[in-house]
């Protein structure tokens, strides 16, 4: 199995380090031809406006949409925003998941936080009962899911922070900033 990480901007090196720990072959994706031969793709955290503009400038939008039809894609934070259908402002979006996202929904950087999440699917898939410790950085929330997109996780007040639609995965938080590999393992099970 070979997993690409979109390397236009953001913490792609952190995702690559996680995949290497799991002994998965990885490559950085900056141009459309880099998608060839991949079984899945991670879109990292970063600034969604920067990532979107660079994806448009280097003709990645349509190749990414085509890739999503048959392959697993996981977006963390900015990546989740980029995969969504609607963020209520004008910026390039892949529109490959039936989710509506609100950017910077928890406030500015001083409101960034860490919290434990209860994620039943993750417990089931990995056989681990430990709560998932998540890191949120100027994080978006998933305002709503539609179609066959389903909610994977919410914070204590009920706001949605992870969703899945078939082989597509979106999280508001950053598993790549932790040492817990369970979320990456879960994504690899979708790519397999």
């Amino acid at each position: 199995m070979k997993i690409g990480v979109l390397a236009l901007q953001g913490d792609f090196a952190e995702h690559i380090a996680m995949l290497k720990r799991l002994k998965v072959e990885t490559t950085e994706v900056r141009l459309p031809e880099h998608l060839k031969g991949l079984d899945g793709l991670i879109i990292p955290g970063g600034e969604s406006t920067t990532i979107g503009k660079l994806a448009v400038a280097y003709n990645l939008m349509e190749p990414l949409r085509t890739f999503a039809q048959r392959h697993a894609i996981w977006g963390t934070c900015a990546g989740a925003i980029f995969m969504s259908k609607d963020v209520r402002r004008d910026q390039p979006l892949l529109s490959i998941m039936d989710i509506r996202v609100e950017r910077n929904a928890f406030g500015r950087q001083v409101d960034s936080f860490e919290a434990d999440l209860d994620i039943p699917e993750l417990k089931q898939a990995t056989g681990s009962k430990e709560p998932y410790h998540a890191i949120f950085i100027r994080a978006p929330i998933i305002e709503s899911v539609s179609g066959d997109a389903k909610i994977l996780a919410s914070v204590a007040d009920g706001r949605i922070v992870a969703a899945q639609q078939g082989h597509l995965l979106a999280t508001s938080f950053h598993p790549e900033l932790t040492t817990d590999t369970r979320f990456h393992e879960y994504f690899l099970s979708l790519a397999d």
Partner: protein
Amino acid sequence: MEQQTGTFAVKKGLAQMLKGGVIMDVVTPEHAKIAEDAGACAVMALERVPADIRANGGVARMSDPDLILKIMDAVTIPVMAKCRIGHFVEAQILEAIGVDYIDESEVLTPADEANHINKHLFKVPFVCGCRNLGEALRRIGEGAAMIRTKGEAGTGDVVEAVRHARAVLGDIRRLTTMADEELMSFAKELGAPYELVKETKELGRMPVVNFAAGGVATPADAALMMQLGVDGVFVGSGIFKSGDPAKRAAAIVKAVTHYQDASILAEVSKNLGEPMVGRNVSQMPEAEKIAGRGW
């Protein structure tokens, strides 16, 4: 399920989100929009870019909070702002208005000539400048969650940025080949906390994100710093002191992403108009250099 804010993981985490990106100095909300539209991953809000601070002379202080707030309103990307070295009240004010990162910066006139701010006391993260690994690790010891090499701000001359990046990255390379019993002596030589020297050796890199700054004026300058091994680039005067800021800003963003692809670098370097005039650092009197500020 309790939420914890202001942890070192979330402070350091925002810098990790900025990696592979360009942080641009802006002095008006209009500049900030141009920077965001060009693909900047963050902006530094200030009243004057370093080239103008040099030209004006006098005491350079924190910018007017009202200007910073207007810039924060204009864009959705993170907004940073500068306080003077050691001026913890300016930092308290910047935290109170909600900036996303504070740059405790040598570009402003230092308020304390012996001590930097105790950055552990703040919820907002700090970035600090360095010229070598010892200075970087002292700042991290004080709580900085991001480092930038200083370069010589406001000159458009990349030579000092290269010198400082080579010093930091070279020291890290030396460190990774040292025996453990040599670390205490190396920590003494660097003037750096032992635990951070040890951590740097184990990681094989700086424990926090490390950007380049000070003198970057062209896409090639930005890609040079990336190939030397930094995580991203600050561009101060280089954009809005040039002939076509929007075009140059977009080109530098692309150059940082495609820093290893010379054909893309050639493409983005075409027809950018006049670069900032620049000042040759080697012909500058020592008293005018600001990189030496920091203890």
